[in-house]
């Protein structure tokens, strides 16, 4: 049912329930002004709402009743028995109609003209000829409400109560670390469920914040004389009502900007060969504990030249800096106070509110905003918001013996530094920097920034995201994550400008929460070291995927593998394990399966848990110490890891977690299963374009095990970005069905021009009939293969590459 109608019915049913008492009073004491006022309010509200949502029958009836009651209130009429009777009849009729509305979603068919006529006659001071038969209307109890209205303050109170309860729970659990006590476990679970329920209670669909946007766009379309289209998706994504309120104005402002500055004039679009109608796309989705909102337009992109000039004119950059600044850095200027990309201020967006205010609003609720733009193609803003304000997942870090909390939303990655790590800090001029995947990230040493003294060794860099740039924060230790109930700091502490809040930890100590944005400002915005963007090449971004976390090798650091790849978890009893050469095998369902991950001198007298991976005929079992959890995580991992059997490190649930390369495990344990090529340079390079993270997860290890170097991206745009940034591949595999740009669009774009025109293009499709194939070939694909047909896929890649070599030779 329409949400508006739902609201209306709830409101009306409540009013109807309350008015019953007043009706009785009104009947007994027609002079009682209080009772009259109540009834009047009811019909008045009903009438007002009806007109709004289009309920003509109800509206006509309520209008007639309102007119009569209004005359009574004014004192123009004296209440008579006839008036009382007809008023009761009118309220009953309203009840009947709303009941039917609740059941069917539409007004029931019926004729109230006789009743309305009588009400009108009474209003005019006439006695009607006939009266309504008392209780003529069917008196039904109001339908059981599926929801109740609760005062927002009460909800807030409940939320803070539960937040404190969570805290107390954490403290109790902390004191009894053992955690084996069933009572404590029950308490823990129950409090967790309660917290979840309260958080959900405060959640509202995000479309509440953008419901007014279609109208705004229509209006803008008229004002600006540009045909505009607003495409919205993910409106059902829910977030905390407080977040919703914080989002409303920034979104409207950004839509206005997109329409005004982003999308070109009709003439410009025509000469650029673009569709006449400009398109603004708004999408929301949940990724882990965050809500991602993207707002894109298909306009001209940022005017970098004008940004450069403005930056110099306002003194934000020197002329030299402006000339050499990266696009990302220039893009960030949009958020600088006083800088606007519009060459002239128009009545539409020249309202004195800049993107700096938008960013400040979002950051005040723990969110962030980034911009990316491509000349002639459009601009996209990406907003990241926490699901809820009150409880914040944070990473606890140590520096010089003191602990600090860092909001998890700000941490993109965790990197170890020091002698045993491949990462090292280096000095660039007088700035400390970290080399990360061929990029240089400026870093801030927390110890230095805070003038702390202590002998601990700096061992970790938190790679922080925000404001379009990455930067590193050097700390000594990284502890656990904890859910913090954030409390504001007093002015004496706030004066430092580096703390976003304070909290009490499970162990009872108080802790300061670092303001990541404020600390980052020190080094990112005022530093000439090029900040790297979130889109670094070589980073594979998988959306939220179920990830299994486990521990192995007695190493307390968590490891992870996509759940999709685990066939099952086996409990392996000692008698099933046999030594075989240097390793072990285990009997599973009558077959001998290599058991890996056990030390040579492993204690074979105890059972061990093992993850079973199955790949066609081959299977391997990976011994683990414990399976800890399955989480939905936003995993960003470094696929360029040099270590065998390891895809890279990702921050999952705030902890540095090693992602296991299942494909490599196979190639090592089952030599026959793959044709592992050792020389990386001789390995053909493949690009996989697929929006489904499941297939990316599946294909990447599969293809690397088959001897290819694989890069996987989730969208056509990212693939084309790789092309434009100079990446070369020997073969490209692309999905056909993808949101926004499809595989067919991709094939056309590849064949149209650029460096990839001659690269073999293989279509991956879940449905491959002849007609589809013809369309695919016409678009520029060379081959077609069904997604699940592994053997054929590998064979086809092989053939295609051979053909290509033949051509080249």
């Amino acid at each position, binding site marked *: 049912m329409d949400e508006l109608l739902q609201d209306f019915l709830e409101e009306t049913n409540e009013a109807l329930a309350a008015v019953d008492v007043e009706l009785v009073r009104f009947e007994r004491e027609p002079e009682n002004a209080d009772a009259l006022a109540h009834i009047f309010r009811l019909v008045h509200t009903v009438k007002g709402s009806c007109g709004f949502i289009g309920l003509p029958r109800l509206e006509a009836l309520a209008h007639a009743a309102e007119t009569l009651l209004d005359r009574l209130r004014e004192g123009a009429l004296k209440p008579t028995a006839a008036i009382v009777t007809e008023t009761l009849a009118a309220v009953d009729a309203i009840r009947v109609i709303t009941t039917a509305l609740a059941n069917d979603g539409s007004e029931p068919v019926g004729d109230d003209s006789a009743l309305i006529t009588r009400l009108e006659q009474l209003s005019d001071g006439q006695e009607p000829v006939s009266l309504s038969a008392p209780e003529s209307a069917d008196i039904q109890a109001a339908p059981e409400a599926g929801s109740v209205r609760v005062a927002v303050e009460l909800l807030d109170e409940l939320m803070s109560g539960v937040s*404190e309860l969570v*805290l*107390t729970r954490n403290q109790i659990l902390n004191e009894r670390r053992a955690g084996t006590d069933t009572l404590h476990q029950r308490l823990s679970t129950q409090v967790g469920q309660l917290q979840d329920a309260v958080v959900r209670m405060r959640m509202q669909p995000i479309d509440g914040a953008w419901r007014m946007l279609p109208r705004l766009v229509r209006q803008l379309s008229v004002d600006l004389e540009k045909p505009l289209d607003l495409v919205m998706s993910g409106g059902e994504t829910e977030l905390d009502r407080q977040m919703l309120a914080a989002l409303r104005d920034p979104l409207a402002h950004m839509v206005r900007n997109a329409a005004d500055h982003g999308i070109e004039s009709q003439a410009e679009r025509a000469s650029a060969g673009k569709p006449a109608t400009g398109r603004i796309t708004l999408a929301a989705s949940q990724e882990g504990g965050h809500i991602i909102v993207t707002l894109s337009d298909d306009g001209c992109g940022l005017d970098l030249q004008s940004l450069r000039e403005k930056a110099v004119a306002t003194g934000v950059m020197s002329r030299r800096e402006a000339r050499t600044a990266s696009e990302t850095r220039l893009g960030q200027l949009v958020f600088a106070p006083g800088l606007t990309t519009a060459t002239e201020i128009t009545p539409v967006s020249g309202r004195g509110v800049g993107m700096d205010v938008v960013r400040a609003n979002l950051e005040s609720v723990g969110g962030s905003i980034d911009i990316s733009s491509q000349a002639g193609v459009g601009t996209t803003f990406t907003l990241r918001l926490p699901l809820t304000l009150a409880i914040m997942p944070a990473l606890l870090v140590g520096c010089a013996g*003191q*602990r600090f909390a860092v909001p998890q939303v700000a941490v993109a990655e965790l990197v170890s530094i020091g002698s045993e790590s491949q990462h090292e800090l280096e000095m660039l001029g007088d700035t400390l920097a970290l080399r990360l995947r061929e990029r240089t990230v400026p870093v801030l040493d927390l110890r230095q920034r*805070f*003038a*702390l003294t202590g002998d601990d060794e700096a061992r970790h860099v938190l790679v922080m995201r925000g404001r379009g740039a990455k930067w590193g924060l050097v700390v000594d230790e990284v502890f656990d994550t904890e859910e913090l109930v954030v*409390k*504001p*700091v*007093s*002015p*004496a*502490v*706030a*004066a*430092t400008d*580096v*703390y976003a809040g*304070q*909290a*009490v930890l499970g162990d*009872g*100590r*108080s*802790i*300061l929460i670092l303001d990541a944005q404020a600390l980052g400002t020190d080094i990112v915005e005022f530093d000439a070291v090029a900040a790297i963007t979130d889109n670094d090449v070589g980073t594979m971004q998988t959306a939220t995927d179920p990830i299994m976390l486990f521990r192995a090798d007695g190493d307390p650091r968590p490891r992870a593998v996509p759940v999709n790849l685990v066939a099952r978890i086996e409990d392996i009893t000692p008698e099933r394990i046999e030594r075989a050469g240097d390793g072990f095998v285990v009997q599973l369902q009558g077959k001998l399966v290599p058991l890996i991950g056990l030390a040579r001198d492993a204690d074979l007298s105890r059972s061990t848990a093992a993850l079973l991976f199955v790949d066609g005929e081959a299977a391997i079992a990976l011994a683990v110490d414990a399976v800890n959890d399955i989480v939905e995580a936003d995993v960003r991992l470094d696929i360029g890891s040099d270590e065998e059997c390891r895809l890279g490190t990702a921050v999952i649930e705030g902890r540095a977690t090693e992602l296991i390369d299942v494909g490599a495990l196979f190639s090592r344990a089952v030599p026959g299963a793959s044709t592992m090529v050792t020389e990386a340079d001789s390995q053909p390079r493949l690009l996989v374009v697929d929006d489904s993270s499941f297939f990316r997860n599946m294909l990447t290890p599969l293809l690397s095990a088959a001897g290819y170097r694989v890069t996987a991206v989730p969208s056509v745009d990212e693939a084309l970005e790789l092309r434009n940034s100079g990446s070369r591949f020997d073969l490209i595999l692309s999905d056909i069905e993808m949101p926004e740009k499809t595989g067919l669009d991709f094939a056309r774009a590849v064949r149209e021009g650029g460096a990839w025109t001659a690269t073999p293009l293989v279509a991956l499709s879940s449905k491959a009939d002849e007609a589809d194939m013809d369309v695919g070939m016409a678009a520029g694909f060379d081959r077609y293969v069904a997604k699940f047909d592994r053997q054929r896929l590998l064979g086809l890649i092989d053939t295609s590459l051979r053909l290509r070599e033949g051509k080249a030779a």
Partner: protein
Amino acid sequence: MTQYVTMALADQHLAVDVMAVEDVLRPAALTPVPLAEDWVRGITNVRGQVVTVVDPAIRLGLSEAAEDELRARCVVVRHDGDVYGLLVDDVGDVTTRDEDAIESTPIALGSAWAPYTSEILRTDGIPHLILDVAALLGTTEGLA
């Protein structure tokens, strides 16, 4: 009838309206606040509330901020929605105000305390400056 908690700080006897005092405790488990003023000695958890612990004597220039040296007592007061702990050397009794025992402070009170007091409470012959907590913390806010 007003009651006062008497206390001593940096050789000065002070008195604070008992209604303003939420708690008196030994300062413990302080989390330092890097980059804050030296008189902000840290934050601490008092029954689930995070309290900003300040040393008024350091704030008023009556003593130096010595590393790792806290005063013996912490008087917890609420000001403008935030909870503060005032560090003092000693906390005495709760004294009921006796009208005769209240005097105006000498106009020329040549002390750093002068802006934060206007009356003296005399008990057992000892003069206690009645401290205006709001004024004291209001100032710290302004100067922070």
